[in-house]
């Protein structure tokens, strides 16, 4: 049944705000175009303007569209079975997200940001060792010996693969040590 506050509407409103901002900047672009290009039929801001306005329209439609449940009427057993099996593949949704492991997710995202920031300074192998080790810890793994071995061997293997098979360079050790080694 129709609800005033639904996931569609929340996302719709956020995207509407973003599209309005985008449209503002798209129209603002005109100021940066040199006079010679001003009268060209195709300008740097032509498509962004169209996109911005189309985005606003699409978000408004998403917001005002009625939020009824699934529209497909289920008539036969096969349909029901299909539906049931599709539901098994379904994601979590806004309705049941209270049970989700949000703490673990936030911790993991924080870990990813730290890894991204210190990957270069910390060196690929040590940084990845800590990423994999702490990643497992966050998810509740406590088999320490397995964790340490896996976290140590995996970055070594991947580094060798990247360096010798893919022929790309990633500094394996912390910057300070690499500098000392004169690499």
């Amino acid at each position: 049944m129709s609800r005033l506050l639904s996931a569609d509407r929340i996302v719709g409103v956020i995207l509407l705000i973003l599209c309005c901002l985008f449209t503002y900047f798209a129209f603002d672009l005109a100021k940066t175009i040199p006079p010679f290009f001003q009268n060209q039929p195709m300008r740097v801001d032509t498509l962004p303007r169209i996109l911005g306005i189309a985005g606003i329209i699409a978000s408004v439609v998403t917001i005002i569209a009625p939020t009824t449940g699934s529209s497909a009427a289920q008539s036969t057993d096969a349909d029901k079975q299909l539906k049931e099996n599709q539901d098994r593949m379904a994601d979590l949704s806004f309705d049941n997200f209270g049970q989700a492991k949000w703490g673990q997710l936030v911790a993991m995202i924080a870990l990813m940001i730290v890894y991204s920031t210190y990957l270069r300074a910390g060196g690929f192998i040590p940084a990845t060792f800590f990423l994999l080790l702490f990643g497992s810890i966050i998810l509740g793994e406590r088999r320490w010996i397995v964790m340490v071995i896996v976290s140590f061997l995996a970055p070594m293997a991947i580094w060798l693969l990247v360096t010798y098979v893919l022929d790309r360079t990633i500094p394996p050790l912390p910057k300070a040590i690499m500098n000392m080694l004169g690499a």
Partner: protein
Amino acid sequence: MMEGILTGLSAAFTFQAIALVVLGCLIGSFIGMVPGLGPMQVIAIMIPVAVSIGDPSVAMIMLAGVYYGAVFGGSTSSILINAPGVASTVATSFDGYPMARKGFAGKALTIAAISSFAGGTVGAILLTLAAKPLADVALLFQSPEYLAVMIVGMTAVAAFGERGRAYKAVLMVIFGMILASIGEGSQFANRPRFTFGYVPLQDGISSITLIMGLFAVPEAFFLILDPKRGQYKGDGESKEINNMRISAQEAKEMAPVIGRQSILGFLIGVMPGAGATIASLMGYAMERNIAPKEKRDEFGKGSLRGLTAPETANNAASTGSFVPMLTLGIPGSGTTAILLVALISLGVQPGPALINDNPDIFWGIIISMYFGNVVLLILNYPLIPYIAKLLAVPRTFLIPFVLFFSMVGAYLVSQNPTELYTMIVLGVVTTLLRLAKFPIAPIVIGFILGIRMEDNLGRALTDPDYTGFSFIWQRPMTLVFLLIAAAMLLYPMIEGRLARRERKKARDSQVTQD
């Protein structure tokens, strides 16, 4: 065509290419078995490897191998543990898992392998026949037609999305195009846009970073959020794989199903937006409806036809979805969109000119399909029982590894932490969008087509033959395409409205009767 096939053969039958197809099939089947990780995630993770190979035809042949492997791996986990790795193999579990529970796991895997092989091969033959003529027609297109065909592709993706919710998909396509307009992409955007003075944004968002952020990272996030994800109704045990033989009687029953579903699946796959998932569900429903009464009752309880149909159809459709990708350069599905990202990252311009400019790539991919199907059948099939044992990787190790591979992949693009931050932000945004049930594949399709649409719009607008947007009515083909697009966009909305009105009427009449 013969010449093309020979070119493809010489590209696909080098030692390097063969080794990489085999490797790709193995990696694909292994990762594809992991619930939640399907072709899109596997290919996304493998793109940096493909780009490092350098030779576009060999790299694409490998990725094609990864693709078939992943589709096949998804079927295996559907049958053995009732955990479809991806939506396109959900229908496989309807009858595959009951069959395995009855003690016929080996037979179910054989049926799946044969059906996949047949569906994929028939699809490849149809693709071989259709590719050249279609590409020839596409060569007649000028910028206005391209623009219009791209709009048709995008609206088709939206129209085949969630029923009555096409506007959500449209919004996602626009979102993807907005992301594409950041930085300097199009030749008409002669200076960086929307960078706000932030230098790393000048080149725009890298497409590899984008697909990692849209597909691989959110999948890992969902696995974190929902520990039960991927553990479906099955009893959690891998089934004993025993006798893998099928009888002549069973083969006879499969043959007509394979014949029908491979052609139907291929045709569904050709349509943009309707991929392997829709083909497999439609194939299942169709075979159920046309089966004789006593056979119909077996559906859902381990029916031979019920397993053959979706397995044939999804593989034929996967092959069919290469048609718009190879001939027009327009991705009809999330998976082909990701393959296009790979193609573009390898420095190849997709489009109808591909067949003439890079025949080795064009035909190499097609030939690799035959080859990949054979590899899957003879190499993977005996290995399944062993690969299936590896399924037991605990999520506490799996998730950090998926995230690690995604981050290494994005980092290799430019060795800049900005790529990683962008990927994390995209991952978080995508996770929220998926929670709100917004479709994700349209974002990558919008992203890929965004810049190319801008180029074609620019060429059409600056063409002295037309004034402004007059090309829309000056070129009849363009007009027809745009009308098709409008019809596709409006039809689901009108249909949804009509259905609601019908229901309301039915309710009202019920109320008055009471």
